[in-house]
Structures are given as C-alpha cells and as structure tokens.
C-alpha cells in the first residue's frame, strides 16, 4: 500500500519514466493503480531520434512490470514522511509474519 499511496500523491506532477527496454518518456502522471501501472499525458520521448515510433502519441498507458525507474521531482517528496511510513509498513509486515 505504501508505494501505491506515494504514487497517488504524484498525480499531476511531471515525471520521467525509464522502461526496461531503455525507452525513456517524460510526461504528466495522470493515474496509477495497485500494480503500479501508470498513465502519462502529453508525453515527450527523450532521445526521440532513437525512438521515432511514438512521435504521434500524446498519452499512454504503461504496464507496471516494464518500468525500471521513475525520476521524480525532489520537491514533490517529503522524505521524512516516506521514511516514517516505511518504518510503519515494515513493523506491520513483521507483525504479520512472526
């Protein structure tokens, strides 16, 4: 749940997604689901000369499993909040397994 909630706070922010096939796309994050599938709008392909086949595409849906990275604006993140949420998540999962 942690990362799902985190991505929901990033909706309407500009992000850069790098896929496992090395394609890198920058756009506005419009939605996310439990599988971390993403929808981006008004995309720009980085290194467009190398990947010309998306030149007519404005919006896209990315399957979560093909994502390698998402570059996020530093200002969109509260690291203290993230760290505290992680500690709670780990504490909860340790409680479940033991």
């Amino acid at each position, binding site marked *: 749940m*942690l*990362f799902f909630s*985190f991505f929901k706070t990033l909706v309407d922010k500009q992000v850069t997604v790098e896929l*496992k096939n090395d394609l890198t796309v920058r756009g506005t994050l419009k939605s996310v689901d439990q599988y*971390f599938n993403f929808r981006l709008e008004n995309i720009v392909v980085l290194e467009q000369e190398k990947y010309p086949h998306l030149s007519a595409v404005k919006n896209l849906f990315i399957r*979560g*499993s093909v*994502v*390698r*990275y*998402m*570059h*996020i*604006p*530093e200002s*969109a*993140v509260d*690291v203290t909040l*993230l*760290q505290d*949420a*992680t*500690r709670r*998540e*780990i504490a909860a*999962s340790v409680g479940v397994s033991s």
Partner: protein
Amino acid sequence: MSLDEMVFIKMRGDRELKGRLHAFDSHCNIILGQVQEMIYSDPDIPPTVKISPMLYVRGDAIVLVSPIK
C-alpha cells in the same frame, strides 16, 4: 534499518546505484534520493554515470542492496 543512509544497489543489466534510502517495501521497490547510476558495458570502457535527485526503482530488477559506510 538503513533508512536515510547511503546504500549501494546492484541491478540486473549491469547497473549499479548509490543513493540515500528513503523508502522500500517487501518487493524491494525503493525510493532513493541523491542518486548516482553506473551503467557498465565493456570492461575497458568506464561506466556511464547518470545523476538523479529522486528516483523510484522497481524491485523486480534489484539483485543486491547494501549499506555504504
């Protein structure tokens, strides 16, 4: 744990990351800050280095995570 500490991450595809660990889950999905990515190709060529202020890394590509002193 190593939260807010610098960690070293080895990934599939001859990639390595160094950065500050801000979040993770049981799948090893990670949020890293102040990140340096090293991409290795030929042994004689120095690795390609990329910087990112804040990065989400999907857990399924991660092989190893270790704290850095």
